[in-house]
């Protein structure tokens, strides 16, 4: 019964999109570390991507809202820092979703998400959000965002 509820919570969390990259969920992003029942309360452990990422606050609010809509009210969100978030937690399937969305996923040998070319050039180590840098493709000449490996 309780395990069923924990599965249900994971399922709900799986439907909460990343506020900045809506094609992946917060579960796929890897920020949900654990869901546990402790003294009649579901404790959801969340880890920030980057210390200052403004989306962390937003997705916490989104999670609260979705759980309440699904009549789950006895929960709390706990921020955990260890182990530190890493893009290694992202599955290949999630990486492909990013690529289809036009963001080059976090992998060592980045390539252009448009034409798959490896002939790319770094434009800026920082991008529109903390998790991305900016590249340009020297084949199709399209600029694109790269999800930084961290």
């Amino acid at each position, binding site marked *: 019964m309780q395990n069923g509820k924990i599965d249900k919570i994971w399922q709900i969390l799986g439907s909460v999109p990343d506020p900045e990259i809506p094609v992946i969920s917060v579960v796929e992003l890897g920020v949900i570390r654990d869901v546990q029942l402790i003294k009649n309360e579901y404790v959801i452990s969340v880890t920030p991507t980057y210390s200052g990422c403004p989306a962390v606050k937003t997705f916490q609010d989104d999670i609260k809202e979705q759980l309440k809509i699904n009549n789950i009210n006895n929960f709390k969100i706990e921020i955990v820092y*260890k182990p530190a978030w890493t893009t290694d937690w992202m599955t290949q399937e999630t990486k492909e979703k990013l690529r289809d969305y036009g963001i080059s996923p976090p992998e060592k040998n980045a390539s252009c998400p448009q034409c798959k070319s490896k002939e790319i050039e770094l434009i800026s180590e920082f991008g529109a959000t903390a998790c991305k840098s900016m590249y340009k493709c020297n084949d199709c000449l399209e600029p694109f965002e790269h999800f930084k490996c961290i």
Partner: protein
Amino acid sequence: MTDIEKYILRIADTTLILSQRLSEWCSKGPSLEEDIALSNISLDLLGQANGLLEYVSKLNGEISPDEYAFKRDEREFYNFQICEIENGHFGDTIIRQFLIDIYFKLYYQELEKSKDETLSALATKSLKEVSYHLRHSSNWVIRLGDGTQESKDKIQKSLNNIWKYTGEFFEMDELDKKMLKEKIGVNNKTLKKDWDKLVDETLIKAKLKRPEDGYMMTGSRKGIHTEMLGKILSEMQYLPRAYPDAKW
């Protein structure tokens, strides 16, 4: 205030005040990419400050993280003086960032071994971020140092001017010694050797001359600052002090 609270406030204030300074570049960067880069670095540092202030607040039990940031006066801040100095031109900001990024990297590497689990976890997280910042700042030091005669002259001057603020990184006062003995804090003195080495590696590539260690600014561990901190605080703290119950 307990010893550990004061110890954490030093790191928290250093990240907070540097973040506030860097945020002044937002919308004024020399190029769009650099505007975004400096703002992103500022945001990372603000996040680090927030994590540390939340921890101090939890230990203290009475003062909220916002109260630490917005309700203290100059003499109650313990950030390094290097964080307060004005942004100057882009080269000044890059040199300041480069010197402190190397310090942060070495400091967090040691703090990671702290027996205090929260501090250790925050250090691990921050270490990833500052290592990335260092890549950015050192690339720029090389580009400007090994660039045109004008960029070289300018950044050499920045380096010479800012050097005197780096002595504070390696001081050990009574509190540092106590925290080190309790295996919570870091031995700052031993960071100097690696810091020198890392600084030199980049300066050689940048064809810049390393300044001599001469007179060094000091005082922040006792809450003594340059006159610039007051100006930063008056801007940073204005709104919550003028409208104490203001909400977004």
